[in-house]
């Protein structure tokens, strides 16, 4: 029988290139590992010495030097070294020294050679070392972008602590105390994986996670409810928890927590729970993160308290810009914060008005739904109510709810929508079947007014309540719009209404009619027409994605456009958004009100060059849209 060295295998499994290896191979590697402890300051490898093992940093930190003693790289948990020597002369090329107390795993050269032979990904990784990873270590990248690169598994320190469904809460509390954890994974020893033939042997041995239990649950569901210590955890756990994959980025985990307002996120490798990520893990990693703000936000009990957080929201935004976060990240995080404001306002409204008489979903539209929100934004929202909704009986409640939230959002810097697209407007506070009627009508018989609606309402997402209500609407849009060429053609024409400024000069913009302007609306002439045309293609593909970058992925998958065209669009959107974002951030820093208008005179030469290129990409994409949906194809039925 093969001996299982669980701690070693599970650790290797969290880091590249080992994370891509099958489980049985990891067990085989773990069973051949040697281990040694190195005190801070002690040498691990001396130049020119024989080397017959790959070195892996289990814990601590190691510095790698050039022959001349110059620092070459600094490694930490999960990093490997010594491969340069192994791949060439079996002599140490880069000496190594522990700079913290370190535990090192040694993987025999024979095992290393087999892995390089059997797994291309492994060979590529170890060979690529020296160059690319070094480059990333030397180039100081923006801190925020690290969140995109760093995988969740790198933040999890230990395997999850689990108990079975029938464990009494007293026992669960004892385990939590003894293991010093704030949450438990609840497993069902009798449950089986749904498709046993599709899961690895290891998964079959692992019990199925059916819920989680947090110390907060202990307070609110056990102690506060006066339940007995013998109550089984199955009665008080949160069933079917939201999870992240171990390979997801920390940023994705952060967004997941933001969106769902959860503090504990089980991490799974395929389906096997491998760790528990706590809000505090991320905050510790990135103390300035927007999650910190969300945490504060959900502790507010008054609208005025939320309002007071507006400067923090702006500060978080500015910090992400300084940390060189991408536009995609900033847009998602800012939208996440917008959602958090909305969610908290709804909680406060429900606390004041009582529970809702029928289920509902509070729906975000436009930029918040697309996860592309910036600082200058008005509120676009609506209420989708359960079909049992009876206006005479229930509407009073929902009107109050909508007004409470709308007013609260306005107080928090999300201006009232000038077009009246708010849940406080009776037209946009309707049961699901009415919404379905609207959407069918807009798709089947588009007119100028409804096309405008489609542009706003077809970027939609549930923020609070029964998300299923909004999912049904998304399904309807995805299936019906893609099957309706006349509607798509009308949307395409609409998306061509706003064109980018191509005559972009140092101090002014030359319009096609020869007019000169010294101010330019980056949203109206840049990002908005770009998202408009991406929306048309995404609807044509039947995609349910809302975010423009994700929509581009969906479009790419259908091969509707050549890959270069897609990556150009992605670049253009990222760049135009970033210029907008930087412009807003510098306004905040200068204590001016942020807006979307830039003066060409203020733009640096390199930025001007890039802007011109981005506008050109937009213009070409509009030409393609015109070609794909020629004007004569638009018929009014």
């Amino acid at each position, binding site marked *: 029988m093969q001996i299982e060295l669980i701690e070693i295998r599970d650790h290797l499994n969290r880091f590249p290139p080992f994370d891509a290896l099958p489980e049985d191979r990891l067990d085989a590697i773990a069973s051949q*590992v*040697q*281990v*040694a*402890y190195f*005190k801070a300051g002690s040498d691990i490898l001396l130049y020119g010495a024989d080397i017959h093992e790959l070195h892996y940093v*289990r814990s601590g930190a190691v510095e790698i030097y050039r022959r001349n003693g110059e620092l070459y790289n600094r490694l930490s948990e999960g990093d490997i070294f010594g491969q340069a020597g192994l791949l060439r002369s079996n002599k140490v090329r880069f000496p190594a020294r522990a700079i913290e*107390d370190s535990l090192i795993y040694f993987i025999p050269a024979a095992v290393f050679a087999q892995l390089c032979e059997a797994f291309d990904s492994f060979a590529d990784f170890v060979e690529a070392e020296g160059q690319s990873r070094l480059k990333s270590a030397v180039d100081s990248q923006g801190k925020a972008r690290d969140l995109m690169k760093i995988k969740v598994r790198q933040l999890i320190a230990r395997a999850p602590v689990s108990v079975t469904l029938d464990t009494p809460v007293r026992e669960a509390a004892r385990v939590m105390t003894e293991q010093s954890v704030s949450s438990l994974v609840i497993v069902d020893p009798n449950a089986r994986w749904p498709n046993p033939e599709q899961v690895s042997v290891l998964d079959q041995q692992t019990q199925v996670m059916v819920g989680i239990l947090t110390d907060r649950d202990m307070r609110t569901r056990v102690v506060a409810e006066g339940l007995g210590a013998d109550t089984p955890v199955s009665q008080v756990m949160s069933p079917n928890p939201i999870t992240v994959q171990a390979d997801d980025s920390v940023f994705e985990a952060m967004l997941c927590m933001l969106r769902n307002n959860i503090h504990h996120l089980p991490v799974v490798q395929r389906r096997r729970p491998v760790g528990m990520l706590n809000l505090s893990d991320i905050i510790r990693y990135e103390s300035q993160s927007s999650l910190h703000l969300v945490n504060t936000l959900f502790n507010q009990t008054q609208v005025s308290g939320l309002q007071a957080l507006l400067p923090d929201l702006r500060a978080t935004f500015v910090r992400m810009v300084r940390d060189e976060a991408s536009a995609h990240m900033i847009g998602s995080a800012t939208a996440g914060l917008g959602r958090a404001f909305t969610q908290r306002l709804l909680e406060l409204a429900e606390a004041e008005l009582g529970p809702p008489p029928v289920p509902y979903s509070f729906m975000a539209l436009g930029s918040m739904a697309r996860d592309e929100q910036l600082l200058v934004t008005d509120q676009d929202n609506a209420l989708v109510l359960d079909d049992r909704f009876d206006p005479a009986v229930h509407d009073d409640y929902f009107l109050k709810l909508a007004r409470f939230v709308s007013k609260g959002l306005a107080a928090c810097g999300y201006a009232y929508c000038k077009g009246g697209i708010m849940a406080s407007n009776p037209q946009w506070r309707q049961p699901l079947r009415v919404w379905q009627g609207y959407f069918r009508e807009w798709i089947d018989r588009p007119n100028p007014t409804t096309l405008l609606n489609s542009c706003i309402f077809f970027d939609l997402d549930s923020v609070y309540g029964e998300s299923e209500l909004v999912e049904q609407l998304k399904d309807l849009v995805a299936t019906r719009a893609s099957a309706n060429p006349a509607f798509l053609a009308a949307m395409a024409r609409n998306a061509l209404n706003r064109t980018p400024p191509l005559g972009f000069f140092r101090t002014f913009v030359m319009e096609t009619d020869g007019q000169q302007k010294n101010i330019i609306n980056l949203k109206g002439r840049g990002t908005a027409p770009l998202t408009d045309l991406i929306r048309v293609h995404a609807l044509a593909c039947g995609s349910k994605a809302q975010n423009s970058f994700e929509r581009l992925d969906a479009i790419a998958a259908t091969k509707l456009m050549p890959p270069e065209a897609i990556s150009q669009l992605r670049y253009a959107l990222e760049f135009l958004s970033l210029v907008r974002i930087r412009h807003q951030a510098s306004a905040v820093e200068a204590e001016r009100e942020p807006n979307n208008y830039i003066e060409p005179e203020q733009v640096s030469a390199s930025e001007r060059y890039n802007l011109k290129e981005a506008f050109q990409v937009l213009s070409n994409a509009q030409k393609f849209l015109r070609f794909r949906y020629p004007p004569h194809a638009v018929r009014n039925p």
Partner: protein
Amino acid sequence: MKGQRQDQAPDWPALYAQLAEQSRDPRLKAFYQAGVVAMDTPIEAVPLLALDVETTGLDARQHAIISLGLVPLSLQRIRCGEARYWVVKPTSELSGESVPFHRITHSDIRHAPRLTHILDELLAAMQGHVMVVHYRNIERGFIDQAVRQQLGEGLHFPVIDTMQLEARLHRTRQPGWLAKLLGRQPTSIRLADSRLRYNLPLYQAHHALTDALATAELLQAQVATHYALDTPVGKLWS
């Protein structure tokens, strides 16, 4: 050997020679005849074997071994390739209270071998080594008792107790009245807490092989931090 101080550690080579004479069981005779390093052997040259047992309880006379993990090491390397791990059918009842600790359940031991079937392998692995354990009373007591049950004679062997080494550093004297008055907690010398002081990672406790590995790493860290590589083993074992 109870209550012996570090400077009064037994002369193990002499004791082994004596036990080799006295033992009637041929396996034990062979074990002792293989001998053990001299007391003045530098620790860096001593063949070591980290050992951990999980048991159904704390009393060697009442409770039984349920799993054993061992991994050989030197100060330079811990050799996982030669690690061994067994779950064995305990001679006493598996108590429900211990299950949450070692996570070994009745179904796990249903098909497990009895200790008697692995005894030869265990003795072979231990032969010629100095054992490394965290809290010697458990490993020593339970293995002695198990061998006594199987072979009619107990088993004596030298151990380096990593907990004892921590105690030497942190429990050099009784806490003063002031410390008692202030309710100061003595430094914890439990395995996980001791490891933290050397910046060793946190492991899932109560798996015999993991604990053996954890103990092996702790010894390397202790020596690297507090002892010279040529410290005579006689100063460390008991």
